[in-house]
């Protein structure tokens, strides 16, 4: 006999699907099947119980080999290096729950650490733009129920947010969008003919890196003013055609991703995209939404903001919070060799940072809290495997549109294995002792 656990929340990407059904064995210990998830979500659930899963912390030895240590020893080491550092860095947070994030902040405050999350290499530039110009946005259900103009700019949900289009943005039949896909016109802006672009009514194969110009040209077209023959590789007639398509809808949404946050113009691209959205609100109703990557990077930003006032790159080293991307941001801190201890949790900078930054990480005392073996654990001194949030422990997470959903526990973690929150609590208690705090 098997049991079905319903309304399971998938802990992979910012789409945060909450309609998964996981079939477990009768004794509740084994995951047998996952329904409704995309292949990546399914992979996460099924492989959480892989036989070669690490279940205990391990410390790197002089000769490069690993030696298993207890969680107590691991917590001792972690507390020691964080409390003893002049400027420790606590990075990641995006694949764990808000409860763990909050515990981490307590440690960071006592140690005068810099706290940063994966927005640093994802939508950090979006946050900078929002701080300049604002953000007209909505929840994903509004798209489902009202939107008839969908723009994907510099993002590829077919690969990065696989169920986004069927749950929210293209296919669903909502209250005012009963004809589903037929109610909507889809525009994709991407230098490649991506799998998402193949679903579009209009694909603009933009010259790579020229998004700022094209966004600006669309605003010029909305004003019916003069345009050069070609902008960003796109003929002016096409630009005017797209402007008319955008203008003629009754509810439009611009989804955007790394194609505009990571190219040379960075936050200026997003500034212009938000300006375009604001501009379109003079004609009809428009919103804009960043396609957040990790399932709880948004949550990390929210918790940091309500506790310290800033959403990422928060420097607590002077005893009060400071924020200045470019100065207090992880990539720059590592590039300048300015941190002398690093804790990585719920993320993989070893794989996803430029190698020059990883080189510094490899030199300093470091801890990697991650259920998986990763390039980060491969260069850290201590690797602490933990339970999977959303599978073996619940806890709050925030979707890409900031909607909070409490993830569920489906099965028990392996025997004796700790959760992020439990391990960080051990570290916090040790830091308190070291710092003499009651």
């Amino acid at each position, binding site marked *: 006999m098997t049991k079905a656990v319903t309304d399971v929340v998938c802990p992979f990407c910012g789409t945060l699907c909450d309609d998964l059904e996981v079939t477990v064995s009768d004794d509740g210990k084994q995951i047998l099947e996952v329904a409704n998830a995309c292949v990546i979500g399914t992979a996460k659930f099924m492989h959480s119980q892989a036989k070669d899963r690490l279940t205990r912390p391990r410390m790197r030895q002089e000769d490069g080999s690993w030696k298993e240590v207890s969680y107590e020893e691991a917590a001792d080491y972690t507390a020691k290096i964080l409390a003893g550092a002049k400027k420790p860095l606590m990075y990641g947070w995006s694949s764990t729950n808000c409860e763990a994030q909050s515990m981490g902040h307590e440690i960071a405050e006592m140690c005068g650490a810099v706290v940063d999350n994966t927005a640093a290499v994802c939508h950090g530039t979006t946050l900078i733009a929002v701080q300049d110009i*604002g953000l*007209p946005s909505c929840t994903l259900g*509004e798209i489902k129920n009202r939107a008839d103009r969908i723009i994907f700019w510099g993002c590829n949900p077919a690969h990065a947010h696989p169920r986004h289009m069927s749950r929210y943005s293209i296919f669903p039949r909502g209250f005012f969008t009963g004809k589903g896909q037929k109610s909507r016109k889809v525009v994709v802006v991407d230098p490649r003919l991506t799998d998402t672009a193949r679903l579009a009514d209009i694909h603009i194969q933009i010259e790579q890196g020229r998004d700022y110009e094209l966004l600006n040209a669309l605003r010029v077209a909305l004003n019916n003013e003069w345009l050069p023959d070609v902008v960003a590789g796109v003929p002016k007639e096409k630009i005017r055609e797209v402007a008319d398509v955008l203008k003629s809808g009754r509810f439009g949404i611009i989804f955007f991703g790394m194609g505009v946050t990571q190219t040379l113009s960075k936050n200026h691209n997003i500034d212009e995209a938000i300006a375009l959205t604001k501009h379109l609100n003079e004609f009809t109703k428009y919103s804009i939404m960043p396609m957040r990557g990790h399932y709880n990077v948004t949550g990390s930003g929210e918790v940091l903001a309500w506790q310290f006032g800033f959403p990422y790159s928060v420097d607590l080293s*002077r005893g009060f919070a400071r924020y200045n991307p470019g100065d207090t941001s992880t990539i720059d801190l590592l590039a300048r060799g300015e941190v002398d201890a690093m804790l990585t949790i719920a993320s993989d900078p070893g794989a996803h940072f430029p190698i020059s930054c990883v080189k510094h990480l490899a030199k300093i005392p470091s801890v990697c809290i991650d259920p998986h073996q990763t390039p980060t654990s491969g260069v850290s001194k201590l690797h602490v495997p933990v339970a999977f949030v959303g599978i073996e422990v619940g806890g709050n997470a925030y979707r890409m549109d900031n909607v*909070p959903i409490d993830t569920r526990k489906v099965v028990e973690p392996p025997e004796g294995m700790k959760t992020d929150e439990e391990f960080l609590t051990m570290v916090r208690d040790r830091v308190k002792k070291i710092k003499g705090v009651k």
Partner: protein
Amino acid sequence: MSEYIIKNGHVFDPVQGIKGDKKDIAIKDGKIVDKVGSSAKVVDAKDKTVMAGAVEIHAHIAGPKVNLGRIYRPEDKLFSYVPKGGNQRMAGGFSIPTTFKTGYEYAKMGYTTCMEAAMPPLFSRHVHEEIRDTPIIDEAAFPVFGNNWFVLEYLKNQEIENTAAYIAWLLRATKGYAVKVVNPGGTEAWGWGLNCLTVNDPVPYFDITPAEIIKGLIEANEYLGLPHSMHIHPNNLGNPGNYETTLDTLKIAEGIKAKNKFGREQVLHLTHTQFHSYGGTNWGDFESKAKEVTDYVNKNKNITIDTGNVTLDETTTMTADGPFEHHLTGLNHLKWANVDVELETAAGVVPYIYSPSISVCAIQWAVGIEIPLMMKDPMRCFITTDHPNAGPFTRYPRVIKWLMSAKARETQINAFKHKDKVLSQSAIGTLDREISLYEIAQMTRAGPAKSLGLSSMIGGLKPGMDADVVVYNFNPDKPVADPDQIEAAFQKASHVFKSGVEVVTDGEIVSNGNKRTLWVNAKTKENPQVMRDIQEKFLKYYSVSRANYEALGHHIVPNPYAIEVDAGQ
């Protein structure tokens, strides 16, 4: 639990009618008691003012739009960040304080119970996470109903019982406290970029008017007998001439009697009245209509109001009146954030600078001061700044100073660049009333507590009530040499007790106490129709499942306090 005796203070307690007499207040096991033993810790309140803990009836302190404000205004943290130390986490933010700062600053001013004014139900988990991280003060949150698709459909068909059943379900699902209404109908219209500016403008598609929404929600609220009344932010906020919309809104409550077991007497609470008391036709002939609005409220005793005082600061506006915020960014061209929430509501955020050099801002300040000076019953008029919309809550002591001291008001009026216009466009120059300490206690303690249906628990110092007690360094017997002394005294209390635990001593936080989240559990009889409608809408239109919408675990609301309402007849 500890015993305390607060000795020899001048007590101001409207619940017992004590107007400054020297009286001892005894605390035991978290409650006010008649007397305590000789081992009780003595707090010397000689020459000081003693009141119950203050009650904040309307502020935006926890939730998605508050946090959006924090995220998009890093500049709000400049210059005023306080490092961690003692019992305090680090604390920052001027107009949108972090949750730690919110708890500390309210507590230092003697506030012990605070209402988060607008909770979008889909985001209730977020609101409660922030409430959990706000130290010391008890809090509750008001879910918004005035643009909710269930409510619009039921009230179109005049189904009060179904509306009531839905309200009860939603209060339980979100651990909410009251029926909040913001820009009824207009915020649903904003889903299409439109608005409802009068009470008779129909909502697109749903074809119901704001007047029908307001009436229906008042009736549903009384049908349930909830502790608080319908709490409304009317249509047409902030526009010259809007006092007519306000009066149209208030008239809907005429003849309706309050029905409840909590001592509440009003059926409508009008919030941030200052923003809704404008005359004129444009910003040039903009004028105060505080008299017209307060005349009506003075005569109609089934209404309570809060002021929404402008404090003349750079602050951040944030409201579920989405179309208003879009309008505001069009006026001042400062950064605009907006979030439309499926099936429920919306929110907008725009920074605003209330400069004393701008005549409109100065007149707005005057309106906010006129209202409490013209209100005859301090038990029906409460002090707020609609934090942070008209100003940060940390300015309450300044507002109290302006109300208690005609001299302080005069100083401010003389400092206005366009003093003549302020005097010609409002009646502020003709008002010499000075609010007394007893009236302040009514307007910040007993009054709001009664309006919220909590008068048996808080807002007073009667034995049996919660031991929320504040001692201020203010001697009522000594004439006030400098009005700024009033502000200083109310900014940092000498002692604050929350549920019998000493949390503030000499203006510093000494304990985080054990805060509670208040919510209302209204038990109605089973309503299969409404349950089916809820099931259907989650299946078809919401973007989260019903089971996940309702999940509010203990790690999110660690210390809930349910007010039970038996509404099943």
